[in-house]
Each structure stands twice: as structure tokens, then as C-alpha cells.
């Protein structure tokens, strides 16, 4: 079996696996990163969303070989042991979940969105998350959480900017 050099959450490792092995199976079954979920297997629900080179990717439609050499980021890498990422913090403070199964995929998609667009409108948020299914119906809370997170990140960035200038 071929060996691929994968960089997952900042750690490079060589993984020997079949060419068709899905990134989703690799993350979950081989590496034990089970925060990335299977929901449909056809890119319809967004539960398996991870970031590859910063872009949201459906891990159920991506093979391990396709991401070789590129940085892959999953929900497990977002928080430091001391501190939640602002997006996680916002999801938590709005209780923007019920069963929590869609949450990791949503959060990863939001991370990509907020990197591109610092203050997304409601429409932009909904459009970006249209490919994500929440069966429990927490959509309005998710939109509010994204807005709160955007605000926090903007505040943190401008504080940093201020510090740099000072």
C-alpha cells in the first residue's frame, strides 16, 4: 500500500493506506479524530467538514491521497487546553446545538467563512451553511453564534493591531 505524508492539525506523519481510503475514515478510524462525523457520504450534510489548506472540504468525498502534502485541520485542533476558540465559545454561549452531531462540521465551515469575511451578513452566513444540515433545528442560534464569534474575532484582531502599532 502507498504511503502518504499527511499534515493533520500541525503534525506531519506518514500513513500507509489504500489510495481510495477516505479522509473521513482515515481521520476517524486510523487517527482517532472522531470529532469529524459521517452523515450522508455524498457531501449533502456537511457533518464531515474539515479544512484543507484553510478551505472547507467534505472529508466523505475526499481521499487521503488527495490531501497529501496539504495541511488538514479538524475540530480537535481548534481549542487550546486553556481556551476555546472564539467560534466554539460563541456556539457554547448561545447553546447553538442540541445533539451536537453537526456542530464540529458547522464550526469548521464557520472558521473558513470568518477567515474570508470578517463581518458576514445573515445572508452570507446562511448561504455558506446551506450545505450543512442540523436536524435538531438550531439554525437561528447558529447564525447568532456566528455573528457573536465574528465580533469577538474582530475585536481581538483590532486589539492585536493596536498592540503592534503601539
Amino acid at each position, binding site marked *: 500500500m502507498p504511503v502518504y505524508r499527511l499534515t493533520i492539525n500541525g503534525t506531519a506523519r506518514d500513513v500507509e493506506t489504500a489510495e481510495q481510503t477516505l479522509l473521513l475514515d482515515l481521520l476517524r478510524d486510523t487517527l482517532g479524530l472522531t470529532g469529524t462525523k459521517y452523515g450522508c457520504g455524498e457531501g449533502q450534510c456537511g457533518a464531515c467538514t474539515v479544512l484543507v489548506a484553510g478551505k472547507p472540504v467534505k472529508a466523505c468525498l475526499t481521499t487521503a491521497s488527495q490531501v497529501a502534502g496539504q495541511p488538514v485541520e479538524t475540530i480537535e485542533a481548534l481549542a487550546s487546553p486553556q481556551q476555546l476558540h472564539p467560534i466554539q465559545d460563541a456556539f457554547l454561549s448561545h447553546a447553538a*446545538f442540541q445533539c451536537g452531531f453537526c456542530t464540529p462540521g458547522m464550526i469548521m465551515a464557520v472558521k473558513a467563512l470568518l477567515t474570508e469575511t470578517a463581518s458576514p451578513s445573515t445572508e452570507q452566513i446562511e448561504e455558506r451553511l446551506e450545505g450543512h444540515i442540523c436536524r435538531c433545528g438550531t439554525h*437561528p442560534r447558529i447564525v447568532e453564534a456566528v455573528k457573536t464569534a465574528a465580533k469577538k474575532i474582530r475585536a481581538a484582531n483590532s486589539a492585536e493591531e493596536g498592540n503592534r502599532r503601539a
Partner: protein
Amino acid sequence: MPKRPFHPSDEPHPGGAKTAYRQRTEFEPGALEPERFELFEAPRYEFGIGPAFSRRAFWQSAGAGILLTVCFPLRAQKSGTVSSPGEEISARYLFEESGSITGFTGKVELGQGSRTLLTQAVAEEFFVPVSQVSLVMGDTSRVPDDGGTWASLTTPQTVPAVRATAAFARALFLAAAAQAWGIGAGELRLADGAVAGPQNRRMPLFEAAKLAKESAPPPPAERKPVPPGEWKVLGQSVPPVRGRSIVTGAPIYASDLRLPGMLFGAMVRGPHYKAKIERIRGAERLPASVTVVHDGDFLGVVAPDALTARAAAQSLGVVWDASTLVQEAKLVEHFKESAREPVFVEGARYPALLQKGDAYNGYFAAPRKLATAYTTAYVAHVPLETSSAVAVWEGDNLTVYYGCQAPFLTMELLAKTFRIPEANVRVVASDTGSGFGGKQGGLVAVEAARLAREAGKPVKLCFTRDDEFQANYFRPAALVEVRSGANPNGQIQAFDFHNYNSGASGLPIPYNFPSYYLGYHPAATPLRQGSYRALAAVANTFARELHMEEWAVGLREDSIAFRLRHIDDARLKEAIARGAEKFGWGKGSGRPGVAQGMACTIEKDARLAFFVELQAGGKDVKLLRALMVFDPGAVLNPDNLRNQITGNVIQAIGPALFEQIQWDETRLRTRRLSQYRLPRFSDVPEVEVELIDRREIPAAGAGEAPNTVVAPAIAAAIRRATGIWVRDLPLLPALAAALDARRAPRGQRPPAR
């Protein structure tokens, strides 16, 4: 006397599902009754593995600490609609020296907040912070059988049980401390995780629990739960106790579990919905690492990894003998042909027949009449986490980790399927990626166990989305026929209501009709069907409320005014009035195609009034805003309740507007998410929730009731916007068909139903 036009045949019911579920729930006096348990299919497989000899110790060591089991007979429940949870309440609490308290409950967490709510109840009664309480949920070897997590019973039954048992334990602690200190128990109270007495005396609960083991049970007057007026934890918006874990992706759902040496399973179901295996080819070409498990009509594979398992399952060549399904277009006819008469069962939680006066003749005698029929399609639960289980055999002892709603029923099903004693089976319910009634069965657990039996190692089986559609059950389709007669003033005098196939929940009416006949006719179903959030109450409320709307429109009367003159219940009246005010009922925006609709009900003891405003344009409908006024009695956790109600409203949009299972001769046509439309962000209106909190009234469950009023309010608004009555769920395809029929040249129009 006119011949009864709704007369169903008296043929025996071909479905005849006698099941383990049925036995457990129907024949045990006082046992919990899951909603429409009789809809469960008979167990799919039977795999006897012969007599088993070993019995497992039922109770596993609880670790360090004092384990207190509180068990006492239950007096009759106050609420008339909720049956008692058995002859006695039992509960287990573990008190540790660190001050932490663990409660053991048979309930599970499906995302609806039961873990948080029960944690609140324990914290409230033991006077400790929520952070000091944890729960062990749904592990059949460690928890009491509290019944499945279904039918919105956690709030009205389990919370009171926890409060009562904890209050009992609290009284024991006070008595024990009083005895140890030689003072009266009346001088003592619980505070900060300890019994507190005069002169700053303190006895931690752990110490008190040690002494309490010897104490005599306190008299009933001393073991009352904390009165609602004094609640400090209940009634508060305590955030989800596992929230931090959820946002970091840390919870281990059944599909995430990994055990040493674990293998991966995959099922082979073929392209047909119901089929028998004729021949299997290609097993010899599979890699040596793959085990094929073929037992009757069970066919699955086990492999070292998921990819190999799926590939092996797909590569097997199977010749199927497929059954032909009743045509979708003939479904209504099929229900009528196979239907049986409603039968009243004494003490049933959802009686299949409710009668008052002579509605049948009252209808024919009435000067004003209305007869309409409504249908609802089969819909799928689509829990985002597909059914998943990990099975482990040790000899003839079986442990199954399963994200499920009813661990004890699954335990029983496994014992029956493999013909082993229940004591040999342990089901550990993990938190699960939602259920909505779809995880009450145990199919995935049985299949995982069968694969593991053959493989001789732990096996994980996670249903593919296709498995979930193909093998799991759906919410039943329904035909509902309604006839009613009114006096010259438009006051309804007789109401004749017949549900075919989908069930009896939601049959009771919130209206003061002097005569009614409310019946549920079981019928034969071509597709597998079972429980679903609020189940038949969705079809029944849709039919009843839209029928009320048809009366109001026919009488040129306001929807609310017409209802109010048929309602006696003061709480429901208040909910409607508050909603009308807050929503701006009747204050149209004036925009073309924009209209409002409303519906109301009393469901599972809660009062609901729902209002919606939408925009109809061509064959599409865009929901703009919605308001749910909800009166459950006491509100135990306002924020969680709002989350539940909003979520349920949003989920209900799917089956109201577009969700439906479709099929052809032998195959489902909806087997993937790309073939089955679900509510997404763009479908979601602004949803407001108005809670009416009545602390003095026992809390009603809220996880299902909001599901019932969404579709009829939308249909009412569509009628106002378009002039078209759409009487079939989902509404959008039916609206499109009605519009097409309008445009069709005369003579080609299909006959109106």
C-alpha cells in the same frame, strides 16, 4: 338510517405485528406505554445460540463511595393522561467523599436536554451546585429501567421520580444526622453538600449517606420535594452540561467508539425494499480478511477497516427475490381496504377510540355539513448520526454499545433474538446524534451482535445513510377523514374523525363539541413504520385544525374567533390571545401573496398556539416568520425549552412542506439525502417563542408537541395566499399538482377528491 360510509373491512390485520415491544409494554400492569408501540415490526431476525449458562452480576461495582438505592411504592399519579411508571420508583445515587453525586437513570440524551434537566433535578433536591452532579444514563447493568426516552415522558415522569427519590434520601440524611447529633431533625437542613445544624455543625452528604444506610425511612411528611416556589436550580436556564464537550468535538457517540481488536461491519441489503436472498456469488473472491455472515435473510460482512467492509459488501453478487410493494398512488385505497375498526382499550395512554354522544347521526341531522379528507406521507427521521452500535461477545454474554432511545427494550430484543437470558445482555446507551423516535428499535444492535458473534471479535456497525432509509422504519403515512355538522349559527354539534394507519395520539380534541367520534383504524402498511416525534398527533392535528379552518373560511369568520367559541380551556384561550396580540394577527402586510395562518392544540398536557406568515409565489412558499406560544405548566429550563420548541418548529417544516418517502414497484426512490429534501438554513423563518410559565402546574413534556401545529397553520396561510386548499402533506408537491390541474384544459382535469 344511512349506511356508514366509512365502514372498513373486518378482515384480520395482515400486518399482525406481535412483538417483544408489545409484550413488554402491553401486558405489564402500569408499565410505561411508548407511543404507538404496536407500530413496531416483529423482530427481523432470530438467531438462537442455544442455552446460555452464565449469569452476569447485575450490578457492577460503583467504585468508591456510598451507593444509595431508594425504592418505594408509588401512589397514583395525579395527571390523568400519564400512566404511572410502574409499581414503584427506584433510583440510585452515589455519594463520594469528594462531594460529587452521581445519579443513575435509564433515560438517555438525544440532544433534547434530558441530561441537563435530570442533573438540575438532582442538584435541586440535594442542595448542591449542578457542577457537583453527574449522571450515568442508559447502561442497563447500572441503572433502573425508567422506560425509553420517548413520548415526552422525561419531564412529566422522570423529573418527578428523581425529585421524589432524592427528597426521600434527603430526609434519610437529616434523620441520620439528627440521631448522630442527638437533636431533632427539624433543626437541620441541607446546605452546600452537607447536613447543616445549629452551632455550625456540618455533616457532608457522603458521611450522612453512610449513616443513612441504617436509618429507618422517614415519615412521608418529611420527604417532600422542594416546592416549585423555592426552586433555585430547576426553573433556571442551566446551560447544557456537556456543552463544552460538544463544541470541541469530544463526545463519544456510538459511531465514534473504538475498542481493542474491533472490526468493521457492513450490511448487504440489495436494491429492493423487501427481498429474500436467492443466491450469493463472489464470496470466494473476497480478501481473506473479510468474513461473510449469511444466516437466512441476514447478509453482512466483517473486515478490518471500513473501506474494505463497504467494498466487500458492494462486491457480493446477490440474486434477490423481491416483493412488489403497494403502489404509492393506491396507498389511500389500500389503507381503507385493510383497515380495522377502532377499539377502545381501558387505561391506554392513547386510546384508539373516544366517543361522546351520537356524532354519526348528529352529522346527518345537522343543517350545515362539512366533509373533508387529509393525507400525510411516510417520512424519515434522518437522525444526523445514523444508527450505530458496537457489539462484544464474551462467551454467551453480550455487551452492545448503542446510541439508542430504549436501552432496556434493546436488551430484551437481543435476549430474545439470540435466545439468551436478559441477564447475559448489557446495553450501554451512548449519547446519540439525535433520534426523533427513530432509535427506539434495536435493528442495528441485533445486526452488529450477529456479525460479532461470527467474527469472534468486537464489531462496529454504523448504518450507511442508505441503510437508514432502507432498513429503519418511517413515520407512518395517514389518511384522515373528517365530517362535522354545525347548527345554523355555525356551532359544531357533531364531529366524526377517522385516522387510518397512523395512530391514536393527538385524537383528543381541545374543542367543546357536544358529540364526537374519534377513531384510529389500524391498517396494513407497505413500508416499515414506527414511532416518530409526536407521531400520529401530527396527522391528526393537521386534519382537525385544517378542518376547523375550512369551517371558519366557509362561514367568513376569523380563524381565532371561530375557534374561541368552541374552546372552554382557559389556558388554551390565553395562549391564543397572547399569540394573536404578539404576532399581530390579522394585521396583513398588504404585500401580494403574503398571508398568515394559525393553529392550536392541547398536546401531552401542554397548550400551544402557533402563528405563521408566509409568502406564496407560484409553486413555492417562503416562510417569513413564526410564533409559538407554549404553556407547559412549570417551565423547568427556559432556554432549553426555547431551543427545543424552535428546533421542533424548524424540523416540522420538512414534513409539512417537502419531506416524503417515495417508491416504485420494489424499490425506494428516496434512499439518500440528495433524494430527500430536509429543512436547511434558507427554509428557516424567524421563529419566536413565548413561554407561559405556571410553576404550580406539573411540567408537561415539550419535545414533541410543537411538531403538531406547524403544518395546519402553514396550510391555512397557503389557502389565504392562493385560494387553494391543500389537504395533503407534504404541501408543496400537492400545491404544485393543484396549480397544474387548474391550468389543465377542461376535460383533462383529474377528478377532485
